[in-house]
């Protein structure tokens, strides 16, 4: 069984660190300490961290922090960052106003 799948795996106690209050997810203002604590609460995958804390769920959709979060979670779990599957990618790739998303262009109009 891979190390992340066994949710009872002993990763030790959460130990507070001096830089726990550092903001990691700039959009949602999630700190390093919150991420580290979430790992000890059992959030072993980046997807779970995201759903639990909202990291990468803000305006930029994780474009700035995903690598940083990955590094922190990997260190906490004592695995290589490459072992952690990144969160899924979903449309829209950039924020888009509802009225524009709703406004589908007809076949016959050309590009400007």
């Amino acid at each position, binding site marked *: 069984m891979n190390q992340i799948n066994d949710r009872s795996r002993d990763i030790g106690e959460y130990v507070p660190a001096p830089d726990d209050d550092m903001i990691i997810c700039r959009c949602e203002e999630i700190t390093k300490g919150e991420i580290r604590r979430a790992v000890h609460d059992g959030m072993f995958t980046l*997807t779970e961290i995201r759903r639990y804390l909202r990291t990468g769920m803000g305006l930029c959709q994780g474009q700035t922090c995903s690598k940083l979060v990955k590094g922190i979670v990997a260190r906490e779990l004592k695995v290589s960052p490459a072992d952690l599957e990144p969160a899924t990618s979903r449309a829209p790739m950039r924020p888009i106003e509802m009225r524009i998303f709703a406004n589908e262009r007809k076949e016959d109009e050309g590009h400007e």
Partner: protein
Amino acid sequence: MSNCADIIIIGGGVIGCATAYYLAKQGSHVIVLEGSDHIGNGGSSRNGGGVRQSGRDPRELPLAMYGIRNLWPTLSEELEVDCEYHQDGNLRLGKNEKHAEILTNLAEKARACGLDVRMIDGEEVRRINPYLSEEVTVASWCPTDGHANPLTTTLGFYKMARRLGVRFISGERVIRLQMIKGKIRQVITEQTVYEGEKVLVAAGFHSREILGTIGIDVPMSQSLLECLVTEAEPHMFDQMLGTAEADFYGHQTKHGSFVFGGSSGYEAFNKDNGTPVTSSLTAPCICRGIMKYFPDLADAKIVRTWAGWSDKSADGVPVLGSIDEVPGLYAACAFTGHGFGISPAVGEQLAKLMLTGTTDVDISTLHYNRFKAKI
């Protein structure tokens, strides 16, 4: 580590996690097997967050009412996570006579079960929610309904169950179930054999194939539902919203973003590339739907869309309880897209059923043996 437990739960979604939590609270030794890599990866993380009673079938309504009365109000404290539960009512909106008829019919059935739900006109709708457009002429209003955050709720149940010693294993796909001496006993996965006194199958649509390995067929089909979420907006309203035509539903979250679910009409025919994928048609369609009701949201930016499979029951309500043909086997599936709101109640009652054989809420009408031919 031992692969034996009192109870094996197949499915680490909100139902599996909640049941595991309530079982562990009573001291049971539980193992939860999740087929995907993530806890709460199915409908649990992909729904619109409704915690409502109105609009429900009378067979499952008692569970919804029980949960809202007894479990939701204190769930955040209990799970030590912000479930973002809001009990600010549900407006089910209509725009014409036909809608009024659907809504009145639903409301009458619910009232018969003792639920406070009433019909209101457009003006009253806009007194409750001033952002709704003039197109809305009628609604059913259930003040005790609400919404919550399905992500934190699911993971909150997981966190607490894990803390109580429940063993969770993700990425563990079940191949088949096995009876030993006339009773359920083994859950065989790709790599391991797990053994338990009792087994609960709560694996969403996958429940059908898993139960199929032991000769149980739950009549359900798969349907893809889609959701979208906006950027955070200034606070507008707290009600949960739905429509008579079910063309969209949603609410504004504590974070400020709006979460809306909806459909394009082609959900039964969607493709899949291994995970549920959004269709390019649906999000624009949901946006158009929303803007008709909420013209003010036209400039709100969509930041993300997602899709999820719903396990549609043949008769619209879940399959819940023991599977008597196979002693020790239980099922909780076919939630048909409205399982989240009743998940704490389902978890608590199932735990009680598995430990004592009785429940506080009558769930007999949701029993597996209800499916009969029409004539």
